[in-house]
């Protein structure tokens, strides 16, 4: 290739890049979104650490909320979660979810519905049309966004739980080309009404919570990545005696977190007991999971 030919090629490439950048910004502005999409991103396996400039941060205008429910997206627009990006900004922290369709990046966002129960330290985003994920969870390095889990939902689809370190407000922004859902958290100056669900390396327990007065029958629910999807539930008294025990299978463990739910018949007991939910280590049989203190709150005998 001659020098003149090389220079022409460089100019054409620069022109295409400038046009592409302009088109991208136009499509985002048509949606009225203000994002940090153009910021520099550094890939770290499936989860990127996002960085941004002060100027781009200042453009955010979508108001924060404590609403318990929100929804959006388009049915059939995507079938997978491809990537999750985390970023720290002045006053808030951001998580961006990228989607895919038939193995390629999706230009649109699949149907989603968010629930953020009042006084609890998490938000759950349900994606009924998403059946696969390249990302299963990650601990963030932020101060209000703690970590997230991608879970196979019991009724089909997947949900993403985004845990906070305390009370928070949030906002959600939709982007297209590529389809991205942007979730921002900022701290709220109130106390949580309930303890945050107990979490261990391969088990997350949603019900019951730490210190809860439990009744019979007890619903135990959560999600896990335990070997062969097997979860052991044991209620143990202060003397180490097993009061009740059950085993339940979750609906996944190899591809992502699998949801489980079980009903446990309890005997009456006095004082404090411990509910242990997890699994025996396939290596040596030692217990791996969460343990929450509970008291007896009565029930059908």
């Amino acid at each position, binding site marked *: 290739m001659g020098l003149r030919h090389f220079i022409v090629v460089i100019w054409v490439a620069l022109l295409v890049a400038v046009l592409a950048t302009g088109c991208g910004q136009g499509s985002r502005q048509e949606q009225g979104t203000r994002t940090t999409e153009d910021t520099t991103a550094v890939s770290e396996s499936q989860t990127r650490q996002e960085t941004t400039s002060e100027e781009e941060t200042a453009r955010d205008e979508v108001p924060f909320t404590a609403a318990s429910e929100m929804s959006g997206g388009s049915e059939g627009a995507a079938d997978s979660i491809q990537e999750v990006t985390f970023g720290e900004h002045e006053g808030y922290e951001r998580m961006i979810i990228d989607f895919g369709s038939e193995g390629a990046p999706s230009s649109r966002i699949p149907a989603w519905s968010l629930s953020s129960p009042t006084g609890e330290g998490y938000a759950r985003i349900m994606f009924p049309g998403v059946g696969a994920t390249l990302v299963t969870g990650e601990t963030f390095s932020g101060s209000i966004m703690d970590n997230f889990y991608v879970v196979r939902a019991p009724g089909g689809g997947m949900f993403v739980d985004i845990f906070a370190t305390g009370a928070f407000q949030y906002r959600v922004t939709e982007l297209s080309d590529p389809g991205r859902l942007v979730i921002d958290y900022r701290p709220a100056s109130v106390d949580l009404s309930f303890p945050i669900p107990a979490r261990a390396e391969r088990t997350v327990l949603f019900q019951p919570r730490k210190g809860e007065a439990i009744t019979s029958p007890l619903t135990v629910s959560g999600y896990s990545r335990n*070997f062969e999807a*097997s979860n052991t539930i044991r209620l143990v008294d202060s003397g180490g005696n097993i009061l009740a025990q059950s085993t339940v*299978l979750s609906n996944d463990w190899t*591809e992502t977190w699998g949801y489980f739910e079980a009903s446990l018949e309890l005997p009456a007991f006095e004082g404090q007991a411990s509910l242990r939910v997890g699994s025996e280590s*396939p*290596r040596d049989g030692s217990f791996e999971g969460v343990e929450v203190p509970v008291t007896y709150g009565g029930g059908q005998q």
Partner: protein
Amino acid sequence: MVGEYLGSTYIPANSSNYTAANRPYSNPINKIVIHVTQGSWSSAINWFQNSSAQASAHYIVRSSDGFIGQSVLEKNIAWHAGNLPYNQTSIGIEHEGYISDPKWFTEAMYHSSAKLSAYLCNKYGIPVDWVHIIGHDEVPYPNTHTDPGYHWNWYNYMDYVEYYAG
């Protein structure tokens, strides 16, 4: 990569998911433990390659055609039984499927797995009986797993193992 068992493919588990050993010299191999994955063949193989799994099996048999993948070399101690002495002295064979759904337990899978068990029995002198070829659910406390479950046809399987063991 070729596995130790003829026709199998070796897709190594992450070295964080098993204990390196030199069996049968370091520990005797005198049992075979039958498992069901509660997931797909490929997803199990893939997960065993992830250091977060903290679990593994020596072999995984595919439902549709009986194809066998090997995740852990037989000399090493796979983490599958949930009981240390059983892990140290056994070979773990996973079978693609779900314990509640018998359609995963195909004849192709039974025959392929039985040939593998017969090979292991002959290689390590494991008796072909119900004491030395056991289900994961038969591994004693603290194990609480229930696989391979009641849809697994033990009678046919053991007949096949006996046949192929010669």
